[in-house]
């Protein structure tokens, strides 16, 4: 799902749930998601299938898992 498709669906759901105040927050989240997906260390995320960016395994020392 692209970011734009997600945002349209999320806002429609917020309207359906009478949570209209959520829509500006969804816009802000969409901006953050766009930044997340576009980060240089994550550049394959929105591209065509290809070599996957390695997802994290369990932290070796358990510090943040």
């Amino acid at each position, binding site marked *: *799902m692209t970011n734009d498709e*997600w945002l349209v669906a*999320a806002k429609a*759901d917020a309207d359906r749930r009478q*949570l209209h*105040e*959520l829509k500006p*927050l*969804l816009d802000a*989240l969409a901006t*953050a*998601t766009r*930044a*997340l*997906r576009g*980060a*240089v*260390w*994550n550049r394959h*995320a929105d591209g065509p299938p290809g070599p996957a*960016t*390695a*997802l*994290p395994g369990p*932290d070796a*020392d*358990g*510090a*943040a*898992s």
Partner: protein
Amino acid sequence: MTATTTAGRGTRADWCQRPIHRLGSAIESGEITVTALVDATLDRIAELEPSLNAFTTVLADRARRDAEQADLDIAAGRYRGPLHGVPVSIKDLIDVAGAATTAASRVTGRAPAGADAPVVARLRAAGAILIGKCNLHEFAFGTTGEDSAFGPTRHPLDRDRSPGGSSSGSAVSVASGMAFATVGTDTGGSIRIPAAACGLVGLKPTFGELSCEGTLPLAPSLDHVGPLARCVRDTRLVYHAMRDGATAPLSDTPSRRRLGCPRPYFFEQLDDEVRTVCERALTRLQDAAWTVDDTPLQHAGDTAAICLHLILSEAAAVHARGLERCAETYTRSVRLRLELGRYVLAEDYARAQHGRDVLRDAVDAALEGRDALVLPTLAIPAPPLGASTVAVDGTTEPVRGIMLRLTQLFNATGHPAVSIPCGHTAAGLPCGLQLVGRRHQTDQLLDVAEACEAVLADLLA
């Protein structure tokens, strides 16, 4: 009576502003009785609490009973160490047996907790007197302390300003002399932000070092428990007591004093006065023969995007039942942020987890060959209550985002971070300097912080 009655050294009102490490010998010798110290603290609370609103519950009767027992124990030669008889407060997100854990919310019940959280039990075992439970931003999900079922906590130096949060009442209780130390929680900066705003020391230890059992979670992979106090030495006393009950070792002066300063990102959006105060502190350190060299922290600009996806997802999971059962009972803004988390896609949560590893490696790399990283804690002075935006560096920024900007990265990576006071704005509002150490080396970070605190002491006069 409070201001004029004398016993031991100084007046009773003076006692309430003393650091813990300067009380111990007087308590052990009986020059200051614990009963008198607790009475002085309760007097202080009676005087200031109506205007500050730092507590959800004051445990006056229990504190007096515990004080009487402490005096009996000390008189019988059973002195337990530097926290024995010292009044401390606890953020009302953490269980204290016999008192409700409200999380400053109407969502929670008011039934008393059946047992102390382990960190509280350890403080009690060290002899600390629990003086009360502290107000906070509802469920610790905010940076100002404004969204609370008990009303907002107010800054001790300016009642129209927020003291920072979410450990708002905790910080105010110590800054105003209503407790000698406190226990807070920190998911994006909730210990360090109010510490900086109120002129205190606030420690977020390495992730997982202090037990979060008995503490209501917000985002379990980001949540930390930690102390706030008036100086690094007191902070270490409380940290050690909560960690393993051990007496703090003597501070070890670092053989090398080399700090890395990550200027890109961390100095890019700062209030002018905060920037001036922090730069002055860095200059003072260099004048004292510390090395402070520029150390870019790679990918720091991705912090907000990464942390937002982590915290929203996890908080929504923690509060899923609450949202289904009684969504209207949350404060409006907290409810909306929790609802927002329900829209984060699993694939983006996974990306954010990857980003967490990238940031962790970047912090480790920046620390290579250095004792700690040094940067501002809070980009703005304590903000006005009710403000949703503030002007910073020529732009208008949301209060929540700008307050989290410099702290939340280290929640994601798990590195220990401590905020120490480094000066004031022209209006007298405190500013904080943040030091970040290697994971699992919190004591070494506190060594650096204590040495740094000594160098900066005259900037606080």
